[in-house]
């Protein structure tokens, strides 16, 4: 077996040193009754060439965004991942290391994550970021947990324009966290600050999304103000790619900013692994979940980095920990750092601008009625179809175009609504093709 190095003579010497005559004897402490007597019922071993062929066949059964002109978004986006990201993430010293518990021989990852935390704070206008959460959904539950402990309140308010899966994850965590979840309906595709203000009464936090699930720009500053007014923590779920053109949540009164990092440095990869980011104002630092890297010095006064504020964490505080997370998404967050460093402030702004003009162009070209007229969009917008979105999608895919996400999957009475997403990888010509195909299939 290509992974194992022991030769027969190695085994003999080792068994002798241990003082047993056969490997089986090493398992003598396992009670007879629970020993597994047969061979595992698994398919025969595949050699490396066969393995590659087998998985190429499986991969070949998928229609990915290189095979189909796709306008799917709804939380995961086909943004361009530069080659430098692959190059860095394949460095074995990063790829095959684990959590930097021992800082002296882990300065590479530690410094990188410190740089990542800085980038997330710059994007969001926050004071502190953790080293990553599992994804853009679980960080929302984490944030609500922080809010509960910070405010002593248990009600959490979720905007209905917040990604449905995010809301579903919060609801799943709620019983254990002791949270009461309230949702605020949207009005014409956005949340009305006044309505939110009412719902926020006695709430620990309010979570809204900017740009929201329909790709529309909420009046985020007013939503944050409404929450603050009620003494609830405003938590913004943001698209990192938008933060070159959209104001940082930290600059309009939010207590925390969270989001899905995928669009900034990770492949779509059928939803993972990706990283969720979580950042807050300084007041909440000791309640944050997960790893946090801090700067310090060594014996000689030289600068170095270490895991810090570990008294928040499960391995030190156990049942009193702020979270149970240990293995996180460091490698993907590193991908995020590399991507954001590749983009720089200039590039990030350009991507945002390009997405916005492409979306505007697409609205025009597609020429279908907007589900929510007269609202500003970022890179995504919803249109009403003449029939069910599922039918239109099926028909369009026959022409090699995936036109978008069927909103009816998550929202009552919106079976005829299609959510169309663009990224900088979609050219005006691609959009013309989309428009053409949608017309073709009489969408």
């Amino acid at each position: 077996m290509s992974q194992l190095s022991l030769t027969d003579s190695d085994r003999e010497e080792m068994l002798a040193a241990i003082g047993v005559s056969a490997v089986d004897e090493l398992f003598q402490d396992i009670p007879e009754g629970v020993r597994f007597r047969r061979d595992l019922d698994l398919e025969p071993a595949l050699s490396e060439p066969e393995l590659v062929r087998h998985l190429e066949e499986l991969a070949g059964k998928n229609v990915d965004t290189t095979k189909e002109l796709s306008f799917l978004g709804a939380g995961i986006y086909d943004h361009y991942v530069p080659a430098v990201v692959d190059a860095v993430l394949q460095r074995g010293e990063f790829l095959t290391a684990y959590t930097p518990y021992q800082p002296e021989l882990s300065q590479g990852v530690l410094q990188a994550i410190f740089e990542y935390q800085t980038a997330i704070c710059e994007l969001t206008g926050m004071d502190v970021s953790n080293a990553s959460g599992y994804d853009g959904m679980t960080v929302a539950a984490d944030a609500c947990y922080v809010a509960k402990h910070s405010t002593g309140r248990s009600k959490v308010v979720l905007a209905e324009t917040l990604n449905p899966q995010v809301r579903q994850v919060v609801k799943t965590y709620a019983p254990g966290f002791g949270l009461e979840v309230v949702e605020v309906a949207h009005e014409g595709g956005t949340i009305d600050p006044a309505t939110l203000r009412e719902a926020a009464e006695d709430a620990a936090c309010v979570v809204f999304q900017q740009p929201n699930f329909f790709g529309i720009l909420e009046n985020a500053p007013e939503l944050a103000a409404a929450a603050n007014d009620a003494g609830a923590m405003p938590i913004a779920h943001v698209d990192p790619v938008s933060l070159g053109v959209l104001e940082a949540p930290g600059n309009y009164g939010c207590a925390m900013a969270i989001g899905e990092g995928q669009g900034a440095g990770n492949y779509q990869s059928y939803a993972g692994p990706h990283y969720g980011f979580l950042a807050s104002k300084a007041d909440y630092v000791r309640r944050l979940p997960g790893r946090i890297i801090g700067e310090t010095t060594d014996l000689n006064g030289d600068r170095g980095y270490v895991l810090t504020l570990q008294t928040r964490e499960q391995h030190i505080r156990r049942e009193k920990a702020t979270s149970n997370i240990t293995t996180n998404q460091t490698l993907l967050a590193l991908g995020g750092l590399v991507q954001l460093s590749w983009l720089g402030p200039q590039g990030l702004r350009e991507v945002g601008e390009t997405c916005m003009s492409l979306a505007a162009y697409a609205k025009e070209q597609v020429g279908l009625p907007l589900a929510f007229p007269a609202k500003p969009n970022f890179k995504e917008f919803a249109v009403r179809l003449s029939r069910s979105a599922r039918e239109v999608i099926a028909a369009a895919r026959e022409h090699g175009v995936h036109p978008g996400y069927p909103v009816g999957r998550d929202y009552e009475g919106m079976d005829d609504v299609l959510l169309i997403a663009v990224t900088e990888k979609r050219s005006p010509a691609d959009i013309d093709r989309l428009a053409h195909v949608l017309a073709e299939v009489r969408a």
Partner: protein
Amino acid sequence: MDLIYEKSKPGRRASTLPRYDLPAAEVPEDLRRAEPPRLPELAEPELVRHFTELSTRNFGIDTGFYPLGSCTMKHNPRVNERLVMLPGFKDLHPHQEESGAQGALELMWRLQEILKEVAGLHACSLQPAAGSQGELTGLMLMRAYFEDIGEGDQRDTIITADTAHGTNPASVTMAGYNLQKVATDARGNLDLDDLRSKVNERTAGLMLTNPSTLGLFDEHIEEVATIFHDAGSLLYYDGANLNAVCGISRPGDMGFDIVHINLHKTFAQPHGGGGPGGGPIVVRDILEPFLPVPAIVQDGDRFRLDHDRPKSIGKVRGFTGPFGVFVRSYAYIRAYGPALREMSEVAVLNANYLLAKLRVAYDLPYDRLCMHEFVLSARSLKREHGVTALDVAKRLMDYGYHPPTIYFPLVVPEALMIEPTETEPKERLDGFVEAMLAIAREAAEEPRLVLDAPRSQPVSRLDEVKAAKRAVLKYGFEDHPDLSGEVGEARQLEAQKGA
């Protein structure tokens, strides 16, 4: 080494992006970004150099021996990195129609079948993102199950071992349960008397790692299971140590009802400096209705996502879990086939060999054959020479080894938790033995060598206390503090490092 922000200069950039000739779409004044984020500004050449240099200041399995106990730092086969980069996988959108994702669904379905066979249980959900989330999900399943049978309020307590990993109690709290701890007996098994005294009608279940974090297989696991099942409670298996028993003893056969599997440990997902991981859970049939949605099911020769699970706890993560991790772990297992048992056999053989060689120089709290890992104690070194487990760990760096997990499990003072994994050749084990024995000698003869270690790394011992006190958690640009001024010492918590 400078931070990337310290290498940044306005106007530089590594990115080139498409610019289409379209009218600009304006952001409403009040939503527009006022000040651009101060992201790094470097051209590609320095970007590549920065991360290349950072990587050379990091120790991975590719660098050398990494016996970090409980973390199963085995070699990560390179072919898996090739497979995960196939466009059909890496560029697949998770909202793709099922008809356009048959390969992904089939792969996940196949992985579920494999994990069920390995765990000896009936249903699987791949959704949890890591072991700790698997734990939390498992506890959610218990709650849902007991509520379903009307014992929801009654059963409010989860029992864990005092050797348990910190995630277990933390998960208990997050799941809204009360925690009760059970002691370990002289042979390192659960203390059955203590256990019996604590299990009752309020007990929702047990969380146990078996083999335990001591690397010992619980010799009374059958009685343990009976005690809980007789009380109407459930057993949760923390699969962190599954690498010891694949094809040798199955959690389901041991009596566990819920199992999480750390794909990044047993099934070789690279640890990536802290993640990603995967924490699928496998459960007994009675718990299947409560598993997260969507379920991945087979329909004749097609595969689909089933959202129609009325009793489901809901979702613990987006979509269907970290797919890339599944690709690697599936490929890893297919490369072994039924010989997977050999993986565990060699893991256990390597561990026992190290144990046999090292027990002469370090204390052995539980004198038994170990499974895939074992725990030594530096307590005598500390008493006699003032050399702690932390010091031994630091000195190992000078010998070119990553330290083992230290100060865990908590029941062992000055613990050194050593897990070689099956992928290490005998030469590496022998080299490590030499280093460990040399360090024990140095502790007696030249303690400063050990106390002042490491000397071989880009930095000497770092001051964790100062880091926590100053809490400098991001770069401050022009206002960035200079910590080198203030006095600092090598103050490091003699607390769990690893696992």
